[in-house]
Structures are given as C-alpha cells and as structure tokens.
C-alpha cells in the first residue's frame, strides 16, 4: 500500500461520520455535489482532517479543493512540507 493509499483510507474514515447517504468514495467524489455537504459540515470535516494529520488547510486552499482526490493530494503535499 502506497502512502497515498493510506492517506486516502484515513480521509475515507474521516468522511464516514458525515457521509449520511453512504456514497461510495473515489478520487472523483465531490464534496458539494456527491456528498451534498453544506458549509457547516465542511468546517467540521476540515477541522477533523487538520487534527488527524497535524496540518492547516486554509480557507484559500479549501476553495480549490472540490473532490476527495484533490483533498488527498493536498494532505500529502502539506504533510511533506511540514
């Protein structure tokens, strides 16, 4: 299992409590469209991701992240920077 796969699995675990409709997760799953998250859910989820990986995902970055795959890539990049 690659580092990226492990990150994906961890992200998927953190999505689960907010995945009310049980949507199957892939890299192309979108937060707004597929998961139907509102801004409050995003806030809670981002805080959980930040704490899990000990990183900061600024609101500026969040605006660019639309899919699970993009989030996994961002987490990978931020962990390597940190």
């Amino acid at each position: 299992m690659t580092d990226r796969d492990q990150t994906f699995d961890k992200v998927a675990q953190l999505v689960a409590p907010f995945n009310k409709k049980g949507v199957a997760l892939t890299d192309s799953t979108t937060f707004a469209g597929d998961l139907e998250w509102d801004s409050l859910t995003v806030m809670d989820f981002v805080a959980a991701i930040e704490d899990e990986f000990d990183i900061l995902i600024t609101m500026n970055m969040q605006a660019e992240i639309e899919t699970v795959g993009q989030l996994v890539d961002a987490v990978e990049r931020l962990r390597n920077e940190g």
Partner: protein
Amino acid sequence: MTEAVRTPFDPADETAVAPSHGRDLFSKFDALIAEREALLETGVRDPFGLVMEEVLSPTRAIVKGKETILLGTYNYMGMTFDPDVIEAGKRALDAFGSGTTGSRVLNGTYQGHKECEEALKEFYGTAHAMVFSTGYQANLGLMSTIAGKEDYIVLDADSHASIYDGCALGSAQIVRFRHNSVEDLEKRLRRLPPEGGRLVVLEGVYSMLGDIAPLREMVQVSKAAGAMVVVDEAHGMGFFGQHGRGVFEEAGVEDQIDFVVGTFSKSVGTVGGFVVSNHPKFEVLRLVCRPYVFTASLPPSVVATAATSIRKLMYAGNKRAHLWENSRRLHKGLRDLGFDLATPEAQSAIIAVLLPDQDTTVRMWQALLEAGVYVNMARPPATPAGMYLLRCSLCADHSSEQVGEILGMFESAGKAIGYLA
C-alpha cells in the same frame, strides 16, 4: 449596427427577462425563492419583511397598527431617544447640513468627525481612533488591509459576516478554529509556518447565541504565538467592564489587545463603525484602507449623535446595572417557563431561544408578534450548527414591568402554538 427595438416590459413574458444566450443569472436563487413562497403560503407573516410604522421609544413601536414591545433591536443602552443625543444631532444638521458628499480623506472630514474620534479615544483610553461609515466597513477595512498575502488571519468559525467578507476582500491566508475553543486556536497557531504575520480575530459577544468568548485564555495563547489580536466588541460595548468598553475590559486583557472594532448601531444608537488602537503606525490606515477611502463619510448629524452618546455611555453605570438585571431576569423567566436557551446563564444582553425547526420557529415568532412583542428570527446559514432560534436583545430602557409582560407573552404564545404544555 441596427438600432435595438425597445418593447414595453411585460412581467408575464419570461423571455423579456431571461436572456436568450446562457441561463438567467437569477436561477441560482430558485430554491430559496421556492422555500420562501412555500413558507408564506402557509399564511404566516414574513419574518424578514416587518415594517415599524411608528417608533415610540427605544422599547416600543407600532407594527401593523399595534403597539409592540421591541425585544430584538440591539439598542442595548436605549440611546436612540436620549434628549441630549437628539439635540446634538439637530444642531449639527442645522450647522453642517444633511451630508458630507465626500470621502474622509477628501472633503468628508468635518469638525464632528474629529470630535467623534476624540470621544472614542477617551472612551477606550487609546491613542488612535478611526471612524468608518458602518461597522461592517470597519471590519471589511481592517481585515482586508493589515494582513497581506504572506500573512495569516486566524478566526473563530462563528465570526460575523463582516469579518469573513473582510478576509475575502483581502489576500491573507485564512485559518478557522472551532467556536470559542482555546485548545483548537492554540493547535492552529502552533501549525502556522514561522514566516508571515499573524492576526487573531475574536469577538467579545457572539451575536447569534449571545455567548461570550474566553478572552483571557484566547489572548494569552495568541500573544504566546506572537500574533496581533483584534476584538470585535459590537455587542459588548456599553455594558461590559468598568468603563463599558467591552468583554475584553472585563476579562482584564486591555493591555494586550492590538485593535478593538466596534459599531455605533447598537449601544451608541446611530450608525457607523470604528477601530481604536495604540499601534504607533495606526494612522497610515487612513491612506490605504479602501472601505475607509472609497466611500462617503457619515453625515454630520450622525457623528454628532454618536459623540454625544459615547460620552454619556462613559457614565451610564445605572443603566448598565438595569440592563444586566433585565437580561438575567428574562433568562431565568424563560428557562422556568420551559424554553430551551442557548447559554446556561445570561452571558450578555442577548438571550437566544432554541426551537426545533423552521415551522415551529416562524409560528412562535408570529404568535409573539400577535401578543405584542417583536424578537428576531434567525435561521441557517446565519446561525451556527443549523439552529433555528428566536433571539431576544434587551434594552436598559425596558422597565421591570415590560420584562414581566414579555414573559407573559412568551408563555401565552408558547401555549398557543402547542410548544409549551
């Protein structure tokens, strides 16, 4: 080029408003329009379309021909009808005219604007004060100007829209922490890269639930991380702390706050906004802050009423004590009636009543209005965590009898809609 044929506007003809290429830009609001229409079709009055036909005092108005107690105005200190305040406004209107027609940095700074800034400096004991045309613009200006692309703004997730909008207008990196969580703030500060400036944005009182921030602890962790701190005291000015400066004064952290933002539209009783500070370079903001420069300044009558009101608020100890008495009594009374309240005790002059859903909230709001009391209805996305609430804000001019009447109206309205047993 052919001359366009102009036809009269026919509202029934959708092609007259919908462009032939691309979609109607208003289609993004269709869901909201439908939700609102469905709500109003049930026969309730529009909670966002109320008109005050006459205003009798800071606590009473005529709504649909009926005398109504005002319990949702943010007019905490009841200064709107203060005789000295009114007189100052009238004099300024006669002496300086109805408006300045200009920016603060061009032809829009009159003697009254300087006097208003002097009153603020005295009120807060600071070296500098800058008056904006609204509180919204004060936050817009401060956030967007002092933090640049390399800097970080760290803010509470429940921050007011004007703080978020100020961040959006600027280019700083924005980091949020969970509402009022010192631990969450500290974690995020620790994760910031060493380079770049840091600004932590806090509010004394959060206006939706009326809860206050643990400022002592938050300021301590912010300062330990080398951050500048701004506190918005929109809902705390006038009745927190020895001089009524706000929650930060009561928390004993005055010497560690870099900027205080405030408004004239609540305790001061008119309209306008301000930032006060002791930073030695503060005055440069007048040249670089776009929401300060590119708008007309406040009318002379407004700054005159604000200055007079601010000076009176310095010595309003009795009013403050009565406001707190009112707030505590309403909180206890509503709790005893069986209402679910947002805070375990009265933390500010805002008491938020939590209700389970939009339908119950609107029906309760209307039943209260019919009984004779106006409160604010608030719903997502303005509220945190998807809450529906009726927000009550008390006034120092509410008499003890009025608070008693209000509690009676809550009881009868709650029973009328079947919420209270």
